[in-house]
């Protein structure tokens, strides 16, 4: 088949799919210029999350992160576990092929210099995204995914020997990744343990105190310069998720590169 026919078919299929979804949403009353009301679930979160003492208060102005890590925390934990297992699987499949290769040929001085200049800037930005997940759009997963761009650039410009010399070693990354996932789990069951010890009600992935469960994590710190918002578990989970995702993606990239997939 010619590539132009291929492209035409792909575009047609994509357009038909998009139109079907649009028509279905309009027919069901979820979309269109005449829809002016949110669905009930959205209203519950939008009005509940920022209000203290409500059922879903998260001590954070970021509704999306609150839903991801507080209201649906256990769900997100299993998503993280899926990524964890996927990376374990990748390493298992590529076991034994993990070794440093020399600098790739064909990359000019320009790519090498610019990649080493840009890599630390990417890492700083990714940390900013992860550390502000409870305040602005972003979070641990997004930050970790941004972080992974830095090793990709260094790999393209310098080869894996550079990454190894900078300390991106397999065992270090693997321990960081396991530590990240373990700390997420510990943060999740932390309130449960305290609740059992104190003899009060508590839930798994409990963030702020609830009417039925009177314990919770530190939501904010009051200082003379103003309140420092922590969002309870949100900032902790974002940091641990950043560790897990950043180390995991870097591991996967290194593994695929060293198995010969990075260059042909």
């Amino acid at each position, binding site marked *: 088949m010619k590539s132009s026919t291929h492209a035409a078919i792909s575009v047609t299929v994509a357009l038909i799919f998009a139109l079907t979804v649009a028509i279905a949403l309009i027919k069901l009353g979820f979309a269109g210029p005449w829809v002016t009301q949110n669905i009930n679930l959205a209203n519950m979160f939008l009005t509940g999350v920022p209000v203290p003492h409500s059922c879903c208060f998260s001590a954070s102005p970021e509704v999306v992160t609150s839903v991801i890590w507080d209201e649906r925390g256990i769900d997100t934990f299993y998503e993280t576990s899926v990524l964890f297992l996927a990376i374990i699987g990748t390493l298992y499949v590529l076991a034994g092929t993990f070794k440093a290769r020399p600098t790739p040929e064909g990359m000019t*001085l320009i790519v090498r210099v610019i990649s080493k200049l840009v890599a630390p800037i990417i890492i*700083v930005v990714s940390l*900013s995204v992860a550390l502000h997940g409870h305040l602005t759009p972003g979070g641990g997963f997004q930050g970790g995914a941004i972080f992974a761009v830095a090793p990709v650039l260094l790999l393209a410009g310098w080869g894996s020997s550079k990454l190894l010399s900078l300390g991106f070693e397999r065992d270090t990354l693997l321990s960081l990744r396991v530590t990240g996932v373990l700390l997420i789990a510990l943060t999740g069951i932390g309130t449960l343990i305290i609740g059992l010890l104190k003899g009060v009600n508590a839930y798994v992935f409990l963030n702020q105190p609830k009417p039925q469960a009177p314990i919770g994590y530190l939501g904010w710190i009051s200082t003379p310069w103003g309140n420092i918002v922590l969002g309870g578990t949100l900032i902790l989970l974002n940091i641990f998720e950043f560790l897990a995702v950043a180390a995991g993606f870097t591991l996967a990239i290194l593994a695929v590169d060293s198995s010969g997939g990075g260059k042909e």
Partner: protein
Amino acid sequence: MVKSIYAYLIVGLILLGIYILYTGSVSMMELILGAIVGFSVAYIFTDEWIKKPSKLNLRRLSILIAYALKYFTVIEAKAHWSVVKAILSPKPSLKPAIVRVPYRVSDEYAIVTIANSITNTPGTVVVDVSEDKKALFVHWLFAEVTEDEEARKHISAEFESWAKLIFEG
């Protein structure tokens, strides 16, 4: 590893600045977090960024700023104008060619500065670098001359003299 505390402080402060710029808010909390982040990342990358800390000084920085000001206003405007004329004229006098442009600097930052200055001006794009022959291969829209030295005079002589002042000597 960090060989020079002076270089480490400078790289750390630059990264702290980038953190604050990206975060978009200045408070006690942000400054502390930014310093932790900036100086930790600087610990890994300082020796990659700066090989000879003794070359860092205010004179070079002020020349760099002067070059940036001139480059982004005068040089860019001239280059844009020549391409705008070519686009708007019914019979543009185009003579596209790839020419070899030798350079006489050895510092890697100087070479990249020259290459990126060439690429960023409309009409010229660096397509390859030969480090053993010390030459850039440049696609030039108005290749009036094709000899190495003549092309260098037209394309990169000014960038090179600035790069030499900033990164060498």
